[in-house]
């Protein structure tokens, strides 16, 4: 016990370097986003006003403060384009997370039921795509889904369709891409809780006269809820802000908020509105982020 306490002191010093790094490059930048979200667009370098110049004295800084306004936020909550993109993001994230849960659960369950030595192999097989580039995996789907791609060719050859179907630039293609990309994020936490479960519990349920389906619903599923929670958050939060997948696979008539932000920043060069969009997105995700933080803390530090 005392040895443990002696160890704790130098270990605390280990926090200094990563702490300073994260404050400087993770926390402080949000301050800049908040500040610029209150500024106005300008044709200048950098493209926003006012710019705080600490060298110009107190009066100039006061004037700069007075020039800050909530106009960008007013624009975001009143303009249909932005409101719809926030709504669309939430709907897309909710729908894809539901599909992911429904398709990921049976896979994770199957993995947990494999003989021990095969479980490691199966886990490796699920992790490998997670390590492989997002962009490349989306590109692989473009290959398959394009007008004269493999999918249309197979369907034509089987006489299931008579003319090629447009798959690319549709919502179905986008959902397919999202489910494909995020599936490992759903499977792994589910598998982690399912593999830890004691099979004796299910035996007890069946000894007491439960049908397998009932036993699953009353015993397995409730016990796997921590994994369900982790998987859902791990998918839902990043999907709300997703840019690459809707940009490459969905049509351009309705945008997700990640795309709007990208468009404002790179195409319209409107940094203040892009920043305000980021602040709103963050506000929207704050509750699930805090929940995820609690879960992660519980999982990694719960033993103590």
């Amino acid at each position, binding site marked *: 016990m005392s*040895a443990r*306490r*002696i*160890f*704790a002191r*130098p*270990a605390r010093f*280990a*926090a200094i370097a*990563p702490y300073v790094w994260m404050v400087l*490059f*993770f926390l402080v*930048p*949000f301050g*800049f*986003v908040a500040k610029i979200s209150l500024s106005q667009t300008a044709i200048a370098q950098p493209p926003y006003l006012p710019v705080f110049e600490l060298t110009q004295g107190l009066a100039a800084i006061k004037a700069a403060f007075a020039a800050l306004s909530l106009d960008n936020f007013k624009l975001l909550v009143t303009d249909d384009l932005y409101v719809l993109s926030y709504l669309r993001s939430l709907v897309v994230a909710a729908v894809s997370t539901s599909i992911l849960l429904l398709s990921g659960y*049976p896979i994770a*369950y*199957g993995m947990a*039921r*494999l003989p*021990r030595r095969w479980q490691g192999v199966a886990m490796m*097989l*699920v*992790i490998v*795509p*997670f*390590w492989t580039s*997002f*962009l*490349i*995996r989306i*590109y*692989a*789907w473009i*290959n398959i889904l394009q007008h*004269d791609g493999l999918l249309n*060719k197979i369907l034509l050859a089987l006489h299931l369709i008579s003319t090629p179907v447009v798959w690319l630039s549709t919502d179905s293609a986008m959902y397919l891409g999202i489910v494909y990309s995020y*599936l490992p*994020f759903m499977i*792994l936490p589910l598998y982690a809780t399912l593999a830890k479960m004691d*099979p004796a519990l*299910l035996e007890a349920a069946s000894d007491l006269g439960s049908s*397998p389906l009932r*036993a699953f619903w009353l015993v397995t599923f409730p016990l796997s809820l921590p994994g369900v929670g982790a998987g859902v958050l791990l998918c839902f*939060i*990043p999907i*709300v802000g*997703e*840019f690459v997948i809707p940009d490459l696979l969905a049509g351009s008539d309705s945008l997700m908020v990640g795309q709007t*932000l990208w468009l404002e920043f*790179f195409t319209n060069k409107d940094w203040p509105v892009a*920043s305000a969009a*980021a602040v709103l997105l963050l506000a929207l995700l704050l509750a699930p*982020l805090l929940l995820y*933080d609690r879960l*992660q*803390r519980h999982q*990694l*530090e719960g033993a103590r």
Partner: protein
Amino acid sequence: MVSATSKISRFNVASLALGLGFLYLPIVILVIYSFNASRLVTVWGGWSLVWYREFFHDEAMIEAAWMSFRVAASSATIATLLGTLAAVALSRGERFKGRTLFSGMLYAPLVMPEVITGLSLLLLFVALDAERGFWTVTIAHTTLTMCFVAVVVQSRLGSLDRSLEEAAMDLGCDPARAFVAVTLPLILPAIIAGWMLAFTLSLDDLVIASFTTGPGSATLPIRIYSEVRLGVKPEINAICTMVIGLIAVVIVVASFASKLSSAQGESAAPL
């Protein structure tokens, strides 16, 4: 562990096979078509290496690949250093001031939408008047990937038997020495796996790099993305196949490392 109820059912096998098939089929098709001789991506014209030759004559692409490689190697190295320190502080440091904020800052980037992280870092770099290019991307990737390293190493540290460290100290080692002599060798596989994960994440990233890089220093994903937007090109298939090959090598090394790690105790999933 084996009992009547834990037997694997046909439904289990089917969902596993379907799931894994779904995950791998597109990648396999992509790799096969990279060896297609035909210019039309969808028509099979026999086996050929012509698109690989094309890549090696595409100077802009090679430059981007080299840039990505340098960024990935440097950011992964810094991230491994910082992430390991963070993991040690969190799992051995007991309570310290601002600990909740610290772990919050480390866990949030794991799920934070990349557009937010990218935009906020860019605004910082602009405010600091930093020249955008290699270093800004490297710093941005380090910030993201050190969190993944921290989680991987922390879960390994959590499963470690602490009586080993205590025994070393009871035998007269000071804490620093006990750490280097006992703990570090035990968590080394997790540290190596963490480096590999950081490397592949950096090699993969499009969004954060797009925000934080400057003119004339595009990374490989940025180049691939601008080509893909124009449509499917067989040369891109070849490049993607080479990236997949590189990542496969990295994974084999990492899984070898984690095998070593699990031989010494419970294995830690890289998430």
